[in-house]
Every structure is written in structure tokens, then in C-alpha cells.
């Protein structure tokens, strides 16, 4: 076989790489485009503002489902944010380099790799069954908070570490205690970065289904307390596909989800750009 010259190899390789790029773009366009184009005709004010009425044709809209999604995310964040940001502060500002710290880091890393459905089994065994929270928003929120914890710790820790050393040194030199430095100097400086992490978690919470499917029940009624069951938009989409033949409604729910994710992405991009500019002295 004749040796192919370096130039020819390069040309072939570049063609291959552009090929993969084009295939990827097509896949992306098909997924987002299909959902948006096919689903948008079913999104209307009445779809957004009426409760689902069930049945084989999936009558009604998604109003109670949206309310339930908001409740769940609010409750999840109320549990998650203090724990996650607290852990991040400890790991970036206080943690000595010892076995305990390494164990915490390792545990957090392993937790990040546990599949959603295993979190679901755990939530089902502990919150739903052992603690008698039943299939409820509370069970779902607690499970979801466990699942999102490693993500929030990682993003918040990165944000705290991005704050220049000089900030800390200046505060300590002025006689501030460590906690005063954290509370008055580091947290305000890292806030956009931390908020970016929180929004990222909200996005993931909207997309989670498996761990909620086995902890929240899935009733479509408007939740009245922490102990009432419910379903999120993603669970509703799944239920529409599995239990009804209302693919139009499922696609419309998909549109709402995709638009929400687009908004969330735009927010995180904007925030993290501002944060980077601030940390590098650009603004």
C-alpha cells in the first residue's frame, strides 16, 4: 500500500471532522426543531391555564402541573441551597488537607455518579415508606435535593475559588474574623457564580423524572400541602406518552420544557459572563 502523504491525511481527517460536526448539527436541529415546530401549535393560553382532565386523549392543559413544578423546585432549593453553599464554603475556605476532607470530596464525587433511579429507590425507602411522608412533594423535594447536592457544591466551590486571594487577605488584614470575611466579602463577590449554579440545578430539576416518578406519585390535582402528591412537567410528558395517545399534548408540554431550558441557559450564560468579567477586573 502506498504511503499517504501527510497533506492527504490532513485533508481526509478534516473532512471526517467536518462530517461529524455536520451530523451532530443535524441531530441537534432535528431534536429541538421537531419539538418546537410540531408542538407549538398546541400551546395556547387555554392549554397553559386549564388543569389536565386525563382520559385516553389527555384532555385539558397543564396548569396544575406547572404549579406543582414550581412548588417542587422552590422546596427543593430551600433545602438544597443552604446545605450546598455551606458545604462549598467549608470545602473552599476552611477544609484542612486531611483524610476527612478527602473523604468528603470522594463521597461527593461518587454521589454525583449515582443514577437518578437509585436516588429514587432511596427516597422511596426512606422518605415515602420509613418516614411516612407518602408519595408527596416533600418526598420528591428531599430526594431531588440529595441528587442535586454534588452539582451545587461543585459549582459554588468553583465560584468561591475564583474570588482573588487579595480579597481575603485585605479583609483579614482589616481585622475581620474568618466568618466576617466569608459573609461580607467572599459571598457577595461569588454571588453571581453561585446563582449560576443554582439556576443550573433548577434546570436539572425540571428535567429529572426517574427519581420523582417513584417518590411523588403523579396525581394531577392541585397540591394543597407539602404532603400532597403531584407531578412535574417532565413527569406529565411521560404520563401523556405512556398512558394516553395525546402526542400533540406531549409535544406541547415538551415545548414548554424546552423554552424553559432555553431561558435558564440564557440566564446562566449571561450571569457567568458577568461573573468572569468581574473576577478578572473587566467590569
Amino acid at each position: 500500500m502506498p504511503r499517504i502523504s501527510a497533506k492527504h491525511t490532513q485533508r481526509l481527517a478534516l473532512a471526517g471532522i467536518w462530517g461529524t460536526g455536520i451530523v451532530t448539527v443535524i441531530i441537534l436541529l432535528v431534536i429541538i426543531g421537531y419539538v418546537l415546530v410540531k408542538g407549538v401549535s398546541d400551546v395556547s393560553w387555554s392549554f397553559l391555564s386549564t388543569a389536565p382532565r386525563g382520559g385516553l386523549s389527555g384532555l385539558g392543559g397543564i396548569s396544575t402541573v406547572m404549579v406543582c413544578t414550581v412548588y417542587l423546585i422552590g422546596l427543593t432549593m430551600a433545602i438544597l441551597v443552604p446545605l450546598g453553599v455551606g458545604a462549598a464554603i467549608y470545602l473552599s475556605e476552611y477544609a484542612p488537607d486531611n483524610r476527612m476532607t478527602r473523604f468528603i470530596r470522594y463521597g461527593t464525587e461518587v454521589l454525583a455518579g449515582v443514577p437518578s433511579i437509585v436516588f429514587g429507590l432511596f427516597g422511596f425507602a426512606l422518605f415515602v415508606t420509613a418516614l411516612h411522608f407518602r408519595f408527596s412533594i416533600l418526598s420528591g423535594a428531599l430526594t431531588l435535593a440529595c441528587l442535586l447536592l454534588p452539582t451545587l457544591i461543585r459549582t459554588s466551590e468553583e465560584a468561591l475559588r475564583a474570588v482573588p486571594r487579595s480579597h481575603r487577605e485585605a479583609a483579614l488584614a482589616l481585622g475581620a474574623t474568618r466568618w466576617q470575611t466569608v459573609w461580607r466579602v467572599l459571598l457577595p463577590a461569588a454571588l453571581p457564580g453561585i446563582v449560576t449554579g443554582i439556576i443550573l440545578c433548577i434546570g436539572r430539576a425540571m428535567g429529572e423524572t426517574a427519581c420523582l416518578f417513584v417518590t411523588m406519585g403523579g396525581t394531577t390535582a392541585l397540591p394543597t400541602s407539602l404532603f400532597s402528591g403531584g407531578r412535574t412537567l417532565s413527569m406529565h410528558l411521560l404520563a401523556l406518552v405512556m398512558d394516553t395517545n395525546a402526542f400533540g399534548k406531549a409535544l406541547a408540554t415538551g415545548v414548554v420544557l424546552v423554552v424553559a431550558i432555553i431561558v435558564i441557559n440564557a440566564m446562566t450564560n449571561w450571569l457567568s459572563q458577568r461573573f468572569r468579567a468581574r473576577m478578572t477586573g473587566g467590569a
Partner: protein
Amino acid sequence: MKRRYLIDRSSRGVLLICATVSVAVLLAIAVFILKESWPAFRQIGLLDFLLGTEWKPVPVGEESPEYGILAMIVGTVLVTAGALIFAIPLGIGCAILLADAAPQRIRQILRPAVELLVGIPSVVYGLVGLVLIVPVIRQIGGPGLSLAAGVIVLAAMILPTIISISEDSIRAVPKAYREGALALGATNWQTTWRVVLPAARSGIAASIVLGMGRAVGEAMAMVMVIGMATAMPNSPLDPARPMAPGIALETNYASGVHLSALFAIGVVLFLFIVILNSIAILVFKRGARA
């Protein structure tokens, strides 16, 4: 003591408690899953559970229930391997394109699109797979809901993850490496293939491990497209039931040994991910030495 020193002292303790929560959750998961799965392991027996080919938790009539998950393990392996075969070359190729070859303008459009796709809920991927891909596969043969459909949906799902993390790691390779290779007379491609990619190896490996973990653990998108038949799949056009969706499908109504067996699948799934990660790390360490 002054108040601010008291606050300083106590805050440290509170923060330490926050930091230990994730470890506590991990241990609690291990304890609960193992505890709940114990009756199943005892009653079914480890070998019968792992190597049994029949999954009949709710038998009809006089038959006794069967709890064998070999078909689920095979289903998980096949669907994950299939997805990786498509997603790895596409993902790494696309990452090289974005990091190295594409003009700035194309990158500015593609990169946010890829990031957006990382965040799209898996049920949306499942829905698109169900309405677009399943009918096409039905035309080729079989019921449509199949291993092949699962592979395609999973590949599309993990592709953005692999692209975005690989691209970051290719970009993180110091410029001096590339300049050095180019100065020695290497072509652009030789530089990318022989210098930049090996330097970015660990990040690329991490992206693959992450994608693999997502593929093994994905439940709901699989419930939608893979058919969920409990029999052993014989061809890509047959339906299958991987472990994660197998758990999700039945947990809500199961009880007794059946429920315990579902927790036991959770144990196997968890070990599976740990083993896969270790293998991936080992393989890449060996590759680094060669």
C-alpha cells in the same frame, strides 16, 4: 468572649456539618438499598438472581414468581455499548472541530447549542425518539420499540455531554504544545492527532465515563422507546429491558419480595457503574504509559 468570635467559631461547625451531608446521603443510600434488597438476595439466591433469565414477579395462575435479571444486565450492556459506539467518534470529532478547526463564528453558534442540548430533559429525547425513530425502525422490521431505538436515543442524549467536556479539555492544552509541534514541521492534523489529543486524554476519558454513566443510569427515556420486554433480546430490532428503566417501571406498585428484588437491581446497577468507572480509569492509565 466577643460576639463576633462566637459566631466565627460556631459558623465553622455548621459549615462542616453541611459538608458532611453529601457523605451522609451516600452512606444512607448504601445502607437503605442494601437493607431493602437483603430479603431478595436471601430468598432468591445471588446466582439465581444474577443468572436467571426469567423475570416474572407477578406470575399468572399457579406458577411461582421468577426473579432473574440476566436479560436486564445484557440489555444494559448492549444499549450502553451501542450508544457509545455512535457517540464517542461523533463527540470527539465534533469537539476537535469546535476547539481546533472551526472558524470562530461557527463555534459561537454551535457551542451554545451543544450546551442547550446537555440540559434538555431526557423525556424530550424519549418523545422525539418515539415519534421519529421508532416508526422508521418498525419499517425495517420488528415492533419498532427496540434496542436499536434505545441506542439511537441514548447516543443523541450523551453526545452533547461528550462534546462539551472534551472540547473544554482540548482547549485547556497549553498553546506552547501546539506551537512546538508546528515549529518542528508537523502539519496541523499531525499536531492535533499526535500532540493535542494525547495531552487532552484525561479530560476526554472523563467525558466518556460521564456519558457512559448517564447511559447506564437513564430510565425514563428508555421506558419510552426500548419496548421493556423481559425476554433476552436476539437482534437489535428486538425490544429489551435494561436495569434502570426496569426498576422505574415497577417500583410504584411492587411489594414484598418483588419490591426487594427491585432494590437488589439497584445494588447491581450501582456496582455496575462503580466497576465501569474503574475499568475506564485503568484503561486510560495503561494507555498513558504506552
